[in-house]
C-alpha cells in the first residue's frame, strides 16, 4: 500500500490534466456512464449490425467480411437481404408477436400479483417492512438457472405439484403444465416479480398518508380513495415496474427453452435456432437488430409518459 500523499498528488495531476483538455467535474460524471454505454452497448451493437449485413458462408467466422480488398483497393460489401428475409418468412413476424403477447400477459400478471404485495410492504411497520423486503430479494441469492430448474421439478408430470394434488385427491390424472405456455408464464412471472415489486414499493412508500386521510375525511370510500389517489400517484412505479418486466421478458430465452414446449414461439428461441441450427449468423443478427428496434418503441413511450407526468405535477 502506498501512502495517501502520492495518491492526492496523482489526483491533482489528473484533475489538472483533465481541465487542460477541457474536462470539468460535471463532464467527468457524465463521462463514466457514457463510456460504459459506448463499450458495452454501442460497440457490441455495431458488431451485430455489421454481421447483419453480411452473407453467410462456410468459414471462420461464418460470414462474409464487410471490408473487401479487391483489385481497386478496399471496398464495402453489404446486403440487406437478411432484413428482407425477415419479412418474407412469416415465422419471424409471428415470433415477434408471440413474444410481445407472452411478455404483455406476463407483465399484467406480475403487476396484479406484485401491486398488492408492494402495497402491503409499503404499509407495514418496521422491522416487518425490512424483513418483507429482504424476502423479496432473497431468491436472487440462488442462481436464476437453478431456480428455473427447480420449477421443472415442481411442474413436470411426475413432479411435486402433481404428486401433491393427486395425493390429496383433487386430480386423478397429472396436469400437463411442463412444456406448455402456462409453464412459461409461471416461470416469467416468478422470475420477474421482484422487478415489479421493488419500483412499486419505492413509489408507494413515498405516498403521503395525509392525502389518504383527507380523502377519507371528505367521505370517499377506501376503493374510491385507492382509484382516485393511490393508483394515479403510483403510476410512475407501475410504468417503471412494467418496463422492467416487459422488456427483458420479450427477449427471454432461458425460460421458454427450459419450461416451454417446442411450439412456444419466442424470438429468443428463433434467434438461437438461426444462430446454432442454421449457422446463419447474419440472419440471427438481423433478428436481434429488429428486436432492438421494436424494444426502443416502448421505451420511448415510457419516456413520453414520464415527461407528461412531470408536466402535470
Amino acid at each position, binding site marked *: 500500500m502506498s501512502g495517501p500523499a502520492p495518491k492526492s498528488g496523482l489526483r491533482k495531476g489528473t484533475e489538472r490534466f483533465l481541465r487542460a483538455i477541457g474536462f470539468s467535474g460535471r463532464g467527468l460524471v457524465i463521462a463514466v456512464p457514457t463510456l460504459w454505454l459506448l463499450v458495452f452497448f454501442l460497440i457490441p451493437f455495431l458488431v451485430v449490425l455489421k454481421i447483419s449485413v453480411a452473407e453467410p458462408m462456410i468459414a471462420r467466422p461464418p460470414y462474409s467480411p464487410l471490408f473487401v480488398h479487391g483489385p481497386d483497393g478496399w471496398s464495402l460489401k453489404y446486403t440487406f437481404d437478411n432484413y428482407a428475409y425477415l419479412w418474407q418468412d412469416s415465422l419471424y413476424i409471428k415470433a415477434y408477436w408471440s413474444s410481445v403477447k407472452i411478455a404483455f400477459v406476463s407483465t399484467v400478471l406480475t403487476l396484479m400479483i406484485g401491486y398488492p404485495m408492494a402495497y402491503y410492504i409499503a404499509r407495514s411497520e418496521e422491522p416487518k417492512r425490512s424483513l418483507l423486503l429482504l424476502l423479496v430479494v432473497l431468491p436472487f441469492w440462488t442462481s436464476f438457472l437453478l431456480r428455473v430448474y427447480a420449477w421443472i421439478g415442481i411442474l413436470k408430470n411426475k413432479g411435486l405439484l402433481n404428486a401433491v394434488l393427486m395425493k390429496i385427491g383433487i386430480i386423478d390424472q397429472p396436469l400437463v403444465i411442463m412444456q406448455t405456455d402456462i409453464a412459461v408464464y409461471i416461470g416469467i412471472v416468478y422470475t420477474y416479480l421482484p422487478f415489479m415489486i421493488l419500483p412499486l414499493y419505492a413509489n408507494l412508500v413515498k405516498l403521503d398518508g395525509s392525502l389518504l386521510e383527507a380523502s377519507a375525511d371528505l367521505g370517499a370510500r377506501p376503493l374510491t380513495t385507492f382509484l382516485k389517489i393511490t393508483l394515479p400517484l403510483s403510476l410512475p412505479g407501475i410504468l417503471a415496474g412494467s418496463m422492467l418486466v416487459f422488456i427483458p421478458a420479450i427477449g427471454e430465452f432461458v425460460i421458454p427453452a427450459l419450461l416451454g414446449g417446442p411450439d412456444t414461439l419466442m424470438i429468443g428461441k428463433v434467434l438461437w435456432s438461426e444462430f446454432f441450427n442454421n*449457422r446463419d449468423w447474419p440472419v440471427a443478427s438481423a433478428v436481434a437488430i429488429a428486436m432492438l428496434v421494436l424494444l426502443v418503441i416502448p421505451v420511448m413511450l415510457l419516456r413520453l409518459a414520464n415527461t407528461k407526468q412531470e408536466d402535470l405535477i
Partner: protein
Amino acid sequence: MKKTLMMAAIATVSATTVMAEEEPVLNVYNWSDYIAEDTLAKFEEATGIKVNYDVYDSNEVLEAKMLTGNSGYDVVVPTSDFLQRQIAAGAYQPLDKSLLPNLANMDPDLMAGAAVYDPGNTYATIYMWGTTGIGYNVGDVAERLGEDYTVDSWSIIFDPEIVSKLSDCGVTMLDAPTEMIPAAMNYLGLDPRSTKPEDIEAGAALLEKVRPYIKYFHSSQYINDLANGDVCVSVGWSGDVFQAQARAEEADNGVEIGYVIPKEGALQWFDMMAIPADAPHPENAHKFINFIMDAQITADITNYVWYANANKASMPLVDVEITEDPGIFPTPEAKKRLWASVVYDARTDRLMTRAWTRIKTGQ
C-alpha cells in the same frame, strides 16, 4: 515465493521465445455423459497434464464455438458430418500421426467409414460411434400397445395410429433435423441420403403429421426422463438410451428401458476427436488423443458409457454383454441397413432447418 515467480517469469519468456515444453494443461470439450469416471484421472496421473473438462449436448453449440475461433479448447469431439463442414471452414489442424502410435489399434473398416467425411483421416480419429434408434419404456409401451407388441420398427414413431396411443406417456425426438428428417424419409421408402427438395419435404410432412403426439424435441433431456419414467418413447442415440437404462436400474424404480435399431435401418454416426486450428496446447492434445486410443482406456469408456468404439485392440477388454448387444454392435445384417449422414449444401441445409422449425413450432 520470489524464486517461483522468477522461475515462472523465465518459463514464460522461454515459452514465448523458444519453442519450449507446453504448460501441462489441456482443455477438452466433449459431449455430456460421454467418458468413464476415471479416464481423466488416469490421464493426469500418466502425463502430469491437468485436464479442464467441459461438456456440451449438441453439435450446434460446439460448432458455434469452432466457427467463432479462439475457443481455447485443445480437443473437441464433433460428429462426422459436422466435422466435415468445420474442416471446410478451416477450424481444425491436421493430426500429427507420428505422435499417435495407438492409431494402429483402430478398426480399419470403421476408420474408412469416417474417412468419407475426413479423407485420409487427416484431421480426426474416431472417439465412439453409434446409431440413432428408438429407446422405450418396456412397461409403458406394453400397457398401451399390448404385451405381445414388439418394438422393432420406426412405425412406433411415424405411424400416427400407433404413436397417438403413446402420446400420453411422452414421446420425444432429438432436436436434430439432419437426423430426424432422413429417418422419416427412410420410413417412407425414400433414400435417407437424398438431397432432393421433394424428398425432404415428404419426410418433413410425415413428421408434421405425428407432431401433435410429440412431447418435446431435445437431445439430452430424454436420458433422465426415460430413466425416471417421465417419457416412454424417445428417438435417441444408442449409448444415451443405455445410460437411461443403467440409471433406471440404479434407481431401482421399476422402469425398464429398451433400445432398438429399427428394422428399416438407422443412421450410423461417428464422433471424432479433433484439434482446433488455434488450440493452445496441440502437443498435449495429441498425447490425450493417443491416450484415449489405448485399448484399455477405450474399453473402460465403452464399458461405462455403452457406446461402441472403433478400437479393435480393445474388443477383448469390453464386457461381453456390450459386444453381444445388437443395439450397440449391430449384427452384420442390421449393419447393411445403416446409413451415413450427409453434408448438405447451404440451400438444402436451410430447407432442412426451416422445415424443422415448422415441424417444431407448427409455424
